[in-house]
């Protein structure tokens, strides 16, 4: 699709706009509709659009698999880590009050961190799902083990017959 100038130009305009909008949905979720889940999906849509228009390889190049895995885990850990932090500060798991002297500020900070964790993981998982369906890497690896196993079994049979 990258040969079509219309699609290319529109994608180039849209991608940064989508990312910015995702960040707005993410951080304005405190005050209005939105939040981590929705923002994550919008953010991931930017990456998916990039890979659809400019091709699988370039999409992967912008956001490598290893980095994506780290983003997935980092989001979960940010969520859980916020909870652990409140426990270390002497309150129950996810009691945001502990995060600040002022309970309201604590709740604000807590939900901000947790929602950011949600957003990060959701965005990264969406991208991972897209690339998992578009690519075939892990599938090939799985079957390599099957072939190796079948080969080993055939050899074992062969030696047994000899």
């Amino acid at each position, binding site marked *: 699709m990258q040969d079509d100038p219309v699609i290319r130009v529109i994608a180039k305009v849209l991608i940064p706009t989508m990312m910015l909008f995702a960040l707005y949905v993410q951080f304005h979720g405190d005050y209005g509709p939105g939040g981590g889940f929705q923002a994550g999906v919008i953010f991931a849509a930017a990456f998916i659009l990039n890979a659809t228009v400019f091709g699988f390889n370039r999409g992967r190049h912008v956001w490598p698999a290893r980095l994506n895995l780290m983003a997935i*885990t980092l989001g979960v850990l940010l969520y859980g880590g916020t909870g652990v932090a409140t426990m270390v500060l002497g309150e129950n798991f996810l009691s945001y009050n502990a995060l600040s002297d002022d309970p309201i500020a604590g709740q604000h900070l807590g939900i901000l961190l947790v929602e950011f964790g949600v957003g990060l993981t959701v965005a990264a998982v969406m991208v991972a799902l897209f690339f998992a369906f578009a690519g075939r890497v892990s599938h090939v690896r799985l079957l390599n083990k099957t072939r190796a*196993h079948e080969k080993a079994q055939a050899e074992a049979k062969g030696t*047994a017959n000899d």
Partner: protein
Amino acid sequence: MMQHLPILQVIVPLLAAPLIALLRGREIAWLATFIVTGVTFVISLLLYHQVSESGARLVYEIGGWAAPLGIVYVIDAASALVLPIVTGIGFVVTLAARHLVTAEIDQRDHPLFFTAWVLTIAGMLGQVTTGDAFNIFVFLEISSLSAYALVAMGAGRDRRALPAAFNYLILGTVGATFYVIGLGLLYMLTGTLNLDDLAVRLADIEQTRAAYMAMAFIALGLFLKMALFPLHFWLVPAYSYAPSAVSALMAATATKVSVYVLVRLMFGVFGIGFVGISDGLGTVLLTLGIIGAFVGTLAAIVETDLKKLFAQSSIAQLGYMAIGIGIMTPAGLAAAFIHLFNHALMKGTLFLAIGVIGAQTGRATMRSIEGAGRQIPMTMTAILFGGLALIGVPLTAGFISKLYLIRALLESDLWILAGLTFVSSALALAYVWKIVEAAWLKPRPEGAPDLHETAIMWLPAWLLVIATIGFGIFASPLINGAVQAAAIFFGGQS
């Protein structure tokens, strides 16, 4: 730190899982998993100790929000009994996973494999710990989704693992959907999802058709998850084509947790006084339980693949648990809890021992174990002990289960069912004898590959054998625990 134990039970594995996904290098992922499962085991023992010592419920308010509004985690006699089973089996099976997973899974997939492994344990622990009905659904999905992935990893040895995992996914999702539909109806009726609050409010409202529907949907969804006959078709392929370590973990724990959730919702939320429970559900469970016991045992007798054989026998054993619940008395429920505990030990033993054979021959069949009794005596003896416990031979934990089950049946004047339970247990002798005959009485066929075993391979299975015999001889702590667990669901009646 002690007051945080209920939440640590769940978040230690839950937060360790993403970290394990990032690990690289030989065996590090396994080592991390081993440590995490060890820590969860210790936490569950501490929790059991706290609850049995004080006799009180431990309630943990997440986020500091109190019960009906916030989500609370509750440890009472019943959950404190089930947690050590899940974590203990998880710990022992992880010990065995070292060689089983090295043999069956590509090295590069180990971190993700163990991530799913820890997640499925975390999901099961969450279902047991939480006091919120929707939270149960979330953890049900966490454990199930990771379990589907784990079963599919069996494709490294046998591609039939892929359709097995897919069927499991479809049926498991149907089950979870039914559960959530029922929950939706309950939420519509009562406006709450907290289990204790639901129980109070359901008692207040008149027994409506919507409440019956909610009960039916929840029960049906959980029947599917616990593989009660005739909803068991996903179980046999899923357990038999999964990697050996996964079969052992799931056969020993996954369905048990669903049994626990069923008890928790039916008795803890609807309550024995709810009309549909005492007559409707009881009859259904007794009928399906005894049919399942016969169908599973007979299918196991004709089966020649060992993993499938013991998966079929799981159907029968789940039937006994269903009978125990279906009696609708404290004694019956206690028998179900005892059997839940003991069956986890037996099936853990059997699938770990079969894994030793499977890792070497691909599939453990009646042919591949011919004469194996002399080549791998420790492994085959572990299978023998597991089999004897399944029959219910005295001095094994299985005897205690059957004893209490039949006694509970007789107390309720269910003579025919007690007889049928006895007959179907005795029938288990047929398939155990088949294995004994193949392993010890037949010579090793010409040209069959030599089997070997080392201490590290048979030790995990033997740990569970020792536990099986230990709980068969010194059964009183378990029986007391089960009786206490059953008592909390009949609190209003006794």
